[in-house]
């Protein structure tokens, strides 16, 4: 810096003083300031932590450097070491008593699928008693699961690797829309579909991926972002590009042609199939930024249908949780707001990585779920740049002149601005067994961020 005549004055606070600058024909850039949320002393302590700026830079650079390649498709028992009666689920930890309808429904379906119960009633009784079953968050094993996110030992999972940071992540295969396990449905058609996915689809994809070689999922995500997909509620281009990658090996696999046709029909008919590859790719990105002392960057946002939980780089694997909000949006058929369950699923890992709702500008169609407009979508993403530490040039948003996705949600920026990360999401029915009732927009509760702020303050170094 040297002294000169400024051409721009950045102002925060009294408008009168900004006006006095503007009177001198100097540009002003005015902060839309508001008092911060949470404890002012905690905020000051975290801001003053001399490690913060460089720790957040490190978090961002690791996120940008992370890779994501699909290297295998395997049963969860093998890939994740799940034993009989061991299940994974979405969000922070939850007990049976506090579990929401769709979470309970998905766990009941898991019992039926694994042959651990003959009837839903028997499954429910065993789950309530904790009899021969145990469940923990997907995130505790480095995995992610959409909506209820329930993974059982016999389910097949995608296995993705980030060779730059030596991490792996896993996600189940997407079942499609409507009455599906991840939305808490567990009827016979749900279990039958899952059996087919385990018996036919999983092994076929395994063969295809092993014959094709590693599939660069990050590259497909980068392309889909430029094709109108934001990677959370819209995965249409991504799904077709993925199919394009594996189709030759599928056809060439020697498997019965009716099985191949059925698998291709299933994947092509489900616009969300690729979501279950976007999610572990995003997990690899955010996991690369985990565990950096002094960093206030969010590395996990996840919901179990009861609580919303976040994890922050500088506080390791501690969860900061608060009751989840209920999404606002549009409903399928005759369903309405009373039918919707609070926010659920690990899919907010996409927003944690800067896409999904954070990059809504690239998928204007999504904003209409809440009766919004294209300018709303653009404004939302531009607002998100205000709470992130940087941008991801690999995920350029064409309508914003290829500006990179807003990446690295910063706890201090969220509490200071009151601006919460924007999440696009599906809505599950409140009652176990219902399935999907709609889709819409939701934000995390502010309390997750103020708790994280307090924890960062307790660990902060003095300047």
């Amino acid at each position, binding site marked *: 810096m040297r002294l000169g005549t400024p051409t721009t004055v950045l102002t925060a606070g009294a408008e009168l003083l900004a006006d006095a*600058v503007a*009177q001198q024909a100097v540009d002003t850039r005015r902060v839309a300031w508001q*008092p911060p949320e949470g404890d002012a002393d905690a905020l000051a302590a975290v801001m003053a932590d001399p490690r913060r700026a460089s720790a957040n830079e490190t978090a961002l650079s690791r996120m940008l450097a992370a890779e994501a390649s699909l290297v295998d498709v395997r049963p969860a028992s093998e890939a994740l070491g799940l034993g009989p009666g061991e299940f994974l689920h979405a969000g922070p930890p939850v007990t049976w008593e506090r579990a929401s309808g769709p979470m309970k429904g998905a766990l009941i379906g898991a019992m039926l699928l694994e042959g651990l119960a003959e009837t839903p009633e028997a499954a429910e009784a065993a789950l309530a008693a904790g009899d021969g079953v145990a469940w923990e968050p997907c995130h505790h094993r480095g995995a992610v699961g959409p909506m209820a996110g329930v993974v059982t030992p016999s389910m097949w999972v995608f296995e993705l690797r980030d060779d730059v940071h030596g991490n792996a992540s896993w996600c189940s295969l997407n079942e499609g829309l409507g009455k599906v396990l991840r939305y808490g449905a567990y009827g016979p058609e749900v279990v039958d579909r899952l059996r087919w996915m385990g018996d036919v689809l999983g092994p076929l994809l395994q063969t295809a991926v092993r014959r094709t070689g590693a599939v660069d999922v990050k590259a497909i995500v980068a392309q889909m972002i430029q094709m109108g997909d934001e990677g959370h509620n819209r995965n249409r281009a991504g799904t077709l590009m993925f199919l394009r990658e594996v189709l030759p090996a599928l056809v060439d696999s020697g498997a019965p042609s009716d099985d191949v046709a059925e698998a291709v029909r299933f994947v092509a008919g489900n616009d969300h199939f690729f979501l279950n590859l976007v999610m572990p790719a995003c997990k690899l990105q955010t996991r690369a930024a985990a565990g950096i002392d002094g960093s206030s960057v969010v590395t996990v946002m996840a919901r179990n249908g009861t609580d919303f939980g976040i994890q922050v780089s500088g506080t390791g694997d501690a969860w900061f949780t608060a009751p989840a909000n209920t999404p606002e949006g549009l409903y399928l*058929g005759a369903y309405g707001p009373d039918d919707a369950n609070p926010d659920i699923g690990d899919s907010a890992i996409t927003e944690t990585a800067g896409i999904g709702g954070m990059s809504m500008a690239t998928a204007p169609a999504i904003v209409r779920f809440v009766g919004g407009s294209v300018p709303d979508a653009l404004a939302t993403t531009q*607002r998100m740049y*205000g709470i992130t530490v940087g941008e991801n040039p690999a995920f350029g948003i064409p309508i914003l002149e290829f500006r990179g996705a807003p990446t690295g949600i910063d706890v201090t920026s969220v509490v200071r601005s009151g601006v919460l990360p924007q999440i696009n999401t599906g809505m599950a029915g409140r009652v176990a067994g219902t399935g999907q009732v709609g889709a819409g927009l939701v934000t995390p509760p502010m309390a997750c961020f103020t708790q994280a702020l307090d924890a960062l303050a307790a660990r902060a170094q003095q*300047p």
Partner: protein
Amino acid sequence: MKQVDVRKAYVDSVTLMQVSRRVADLDGVAAALVAMATDLNLELAAGMGFDVPATVSGNDMLVALDVASDDVLAAARTEVDAALAAASRPAAGGFGDAPPPPTMRAATRDADPETAVALVSTPGQYAFADALDAVDAGLLTMVFSDNVSVAQEVALKRRAGETGALVMGPDCGTAVVGGVGLGFANVVRPGPVGIVAASGTGAQHLLALLDGAGVGVSHCLGVGGRDLSADVGGLSTLRALDLLDADEATELVVVISKPPAPEVAEKVRAHAASLGTPVVFGLLGPGQPDLTATAAAVVEAAGGTWTAPESWGGAVSSRRGQGVLKGLFVGGTMRDEARLVAASALGLEPASLEMVDFGDDEYTRGRPHPMIDGSLRLDRIAHETDDPTCGVLLLDVVLGLGSDPDPAAALVEPVRRATAAGLPVVVSVIGTRDDPQDLRRTAGALTDAGAAVFLSNAAAARAAADLAGAS
């Protein structure tokens, strides 16, 4: 009754969900599903009890309505048409402006420290975060906010040492950077004098005196009233000296401050001596020259010619009865200087003089600074006019950017009433010829109201003391 229409049309599912909701909201409509006839939607329709023809395909649109009567059915179909038409109409207007930055950090993105400066005036308990953002970005950062803790001030200034920024403040009211006034600043001509000021109104007075003498100012950098304390150690003063030394436009530097803590004074003086640019110290307080004398020395040092600042006589030439001198100020440094000058002239203890600073915290809690809103002082002038123990009234008026656009307007009537009551009123007007309020018009209005007007605060105090000391 349940009715299913099939239309040959394609509309995306998001739009159709909106249409469904709009139609379902009509009175008499129990349920509505407007959707493409995909397998999923056929299942949904069946689940809602609709009987869908088996011949439909995924390219057909279902309009399934559960309605109370034929009239409602007709209304619902009209609504479907209207909603579909509305959805296909492009929105008016463009993409809209980008939202304003929510934090200073966001505002500093792409900000160039060569061309951008930051001005933080948020409430003191919160100012640290926004100031730190600007310092992290390496910007010249003015912290107008007061009530920032010493620990936070030190943290900001240490960080500035790492990023190459300069912290002006906290509680920095005045700065001029390359001709641009920040906070309460006077409009001065460009010139060779660089100012480092630990006092806002002190800086304003020096700016006004130099400009009045025809000597211009390159930059006036505030450092905050605590900068030269032992706790802060002169961090910003040292940095400001370096910046001015490196600045091509600056040929002479003036430091104005209360006397620093001894160890800090030594450090600052030693540093000043090591610079290529000469540094003049104008210290404020007992036994020190007043600001007018400092200005005179600076003008001489800058090669200018000093003439005493102008003044105009008042309507009342003696004190009222046996009353004493009282002062009512908006500038803290103006008050302090006037108290010392008048006490010395009168041979009194400074503390014995009743001199009020309306800019003090006790008068500004929950209200604007008196340089913006002088109503509290106006009430007090009326009160002193009616109080026979007040024999001479001394006031200051501070002009410049950010201040009341016409402070004389409100003062004229109370001053006229005071002088009419035989109470002499002496006013020091701090301002420059280019200030937006118009210095000459302001001085003229006050003179017309009967006040004696001085462009030197020390001269005003001396004149007031002369009036008060005469028997």
